């Protein structure tokens, strides 16, 4: 994977408006340790090269299924974890922004010393994981988080005044009586009041707990709030209360939201722009209208048609996806979605692992597979312990058992007694391409073909 950054693919960069946060080429890998010595055997690529901007006053929705990396990305933006590569930039003036993008557009080895120096400077001033103490505290004032499980995010041994007033204390904004008044103000802002000051988190309902954690997030008058599934644990009627509250607050306080959720109906209701993630990468991004009415990625389509909306005709069939999400430590080549894609083409990145994955579900054959010698991800020899299995694979590779696209992508296949040589056409990763103003998608197809 190259580190090149085609400016338009930094989603949102071509729309005007003041930028609050820029995520640039962000990677977060978690090492997998294996064996008796606990050596690093691989990496879970939770976030694998993501770039986008969040503009002041807007709500960016981040959607995807569990394991797609949306929560990890959210934690990187909140500064709770440090990215493996790339970074989250805040407080960039338009000029700095341009400079940063122009430097990042040059592949690392080709950068001049001057560029390198400028980048260092930008990093130490604006990159969230490189900030000094003073700047870090400033970032903390500017970026707050509301967590999914409100109860878990409130210290059970602190009462409301301690919880909501704590940011003010830490940043030395208010003490004693003044603090109490500020806390009451904040509580009233989220629809609670003075009578709740000395109660403990467990004495509140789920909705009230979430209000408390919103009040805490508001205490420092931040610019950006990362909302990590803030209503997933709540009932619909309470969810509606919280969503309305978040909206009101945004209007009044000109807040910027990064709204992370798996619930598409919530995202459609709340977001101005939407980023769809699949297996650590952005598969599509655009304005809410683009995503919901003109989706250009088959995964977005699948998500939309799998999640029923109350206002939809109940007769429309729910489109379902085949298979399960591949292992994020060994993401598929080409387009990561090709293994489950209903409209996959030969150019989507068919590879040796697709054959191995297919074998795993074939009775007997996987046990007969003794070795796979790979030349690269697309070319390999599969060695079996008996001739019949090898022959069976060779037959299967030419039959209906394999997706048509995979068969078309298979450029070479030779059967030697117990060895099957296969070669798929090599494909580079599918990058995001522009589909319209501020609308990008990572799919080899220009248009979604009509399904069923």
């Amino acid at each position, binding site marked *: 994977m190259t580190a090149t950054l085609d400016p338009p693919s930094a989603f949102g960069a071509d729309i005007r408006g003041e930028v609050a946060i820029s995520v640039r080429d962000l990677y977060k890998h978690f090492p997998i340790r294996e064996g008796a010595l606990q050596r690093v055997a691989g990496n879970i690529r939770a976030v694998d090269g993501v770039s986008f901007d969040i503009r002041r006053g807007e709500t960016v929705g981040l959607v995807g299924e569990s394991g797609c990396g949306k929560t990890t990305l959210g934690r990187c933006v*909140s*500064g*709770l974890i440090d990215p493996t590569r790339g970074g989250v930039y805040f407080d960039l003036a338009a000029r700095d922004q341009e400079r940063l993008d122009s430097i990042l557009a040059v592949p690392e080895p080709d950068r001049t010393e001057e560029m390198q120096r400028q980048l260092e400077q930008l990093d130490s001033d604006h990159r969230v994981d490189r900030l000094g103490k003073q700047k*870090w*505290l400033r970032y*903390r*004032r500017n*970026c*707050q*988080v509301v*967590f999914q*499980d409100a109860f*878990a*995010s*409130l*210290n*059970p*041994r*602190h*009462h409301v*005044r301690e919880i909501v007033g*704590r*940011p003010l204390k*830490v*940043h030395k904004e208010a003490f*004693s*009586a*003044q603090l*109490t*008044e500020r806390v009451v103000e904040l509580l009233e802002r989220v629809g609670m009041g003075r009578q709740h*000051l*000395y*109660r*403990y988190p*467990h004495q509140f309902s789920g909705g009230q707990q979430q209000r408390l*954690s919103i009040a*805490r997030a508001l205490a*420092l008058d931040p610019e950006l709030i990362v909302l990590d599934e803030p209503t997933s644990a709540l009932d619909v009627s309470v969810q509606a209360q919280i969503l309305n509250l978040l909206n009101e607050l945004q209007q009044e306080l000109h807040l910027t939201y990064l709204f992370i959720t798996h619930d598409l109906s919530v995202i459609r209701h709340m977001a101005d722009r939407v980023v769809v993630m699949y297996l650590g990468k952005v598969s599509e991004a655009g304005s809410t209208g683009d995503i919901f009415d003109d989706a250009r990625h088959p995964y977005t389509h699948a998500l939309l048609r799998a999640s029923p909306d109350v206002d939809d005709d109940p007769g429309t069939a729910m489109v379902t996806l085949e298979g399960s999400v591949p292992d994020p430590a060994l993401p598929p080549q080409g387009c990561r979605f090709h293994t489950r894609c209903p409209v996959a083409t030969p150019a989507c990145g068919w590879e040796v692992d697709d054959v191995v994955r297919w074998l795993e579900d074939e009775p007997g054959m996987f046990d007969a597979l003794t070795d796979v010698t790979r030349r690269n991800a697309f070319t390999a020899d599969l060695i079996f312990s008996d001739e019949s299995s090898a022959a069976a694979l060779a037959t299967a590779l030419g039959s209906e058992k394999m997706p048509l696209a995979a068969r078309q992508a298979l450029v070479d296949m030779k059967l030697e007694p117990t060895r099957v040589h296969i070669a798929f056409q090599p494909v580079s990763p599918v990058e995001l391409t522009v589909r319209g103003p501020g609308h990008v998608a990572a799919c080899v197809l220009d248009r979604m073909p009509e399904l069923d």
Partner: protein
Amino acid sequence: MAVEPAVREPAVAFAGGLGIRLRRFGEISREVLRNPTTLIGLILIVGMIGMAVFAPLLIEPNTPNPNQMPRDWGALNEPPGTPGHVLGTTQQGGDVLYGVIWGARTSLRLSLIVVSLTVVIGLIVGSLAGFLGGRLDELLMRLVDVFLSIPELIFALAIAAVLGPSFGNIILALAAVFWVKYARIIRGQVIHIKQNEYVDAARVIGDSGFRIYMKDVLPNSITPVIVQATLDMGNVVLIGATLSFIGLAEAGLAEWGVLVSQGQAGISAGRWWASTFPGLMVFLWALAFNLVGDGLRDILDPRTESRR
């Protein structure tokens, strides 16, 4: 309102916070009283600690050293009920009742010193390992593992043997053995609590690591330590008495294990009392703290706590 709110607020805040804490304490005590076995344990503890504290009032202290058994050379091996020796006397003419009462004082001293010492050491080691993690954690935990690989009584026995037979050395030996448990408990708790979202929330606010540790991590990690410390108030006496039974305390000390050991010689001759009463005290002491510790474990269980 005539009174300026700004003047009143701190008092209200204080009263509010304290009131809540008092109420919580009240809830716990009510819970304790509702559970009959815990209540029995509590009564036993109060009784025995009372006995230890007021020992000089209950029975005349031996001079010059009240911790030594008095010797009544005119009354050797007297059975219980003998005038002046309600629980009988030992082979050396020691009054068993004196041993029972002053033994409580010895046991209280032993358990308080050992438990407070080990909790402090355990807290420091466990916190460092759990909160800082990394190499230090690895190193400290290997050390803990090494300490845990020797059964505790045998370890204490070996230490006490090296230091020489005296009650003070028993205290040292027990302290050297018991801190490991706390270090382990604290470390486990800290690592567990550290993963809670409220710790993330505190980091997002911008609070410092040390303050997060003191405000969020430690207070929420402490419950199992309280339970273990309560149980250990009993266990320490149990093992301490075992060591002195084996012979690692000074002969003639007014201590339950020593008395059981002395009385042991006489049982074949039917003199059962000299061992039975002091041994019973060890049992009751350990039982009481076990009952209360067990009750506390249920009451302070976070799974039930938050619901109340």
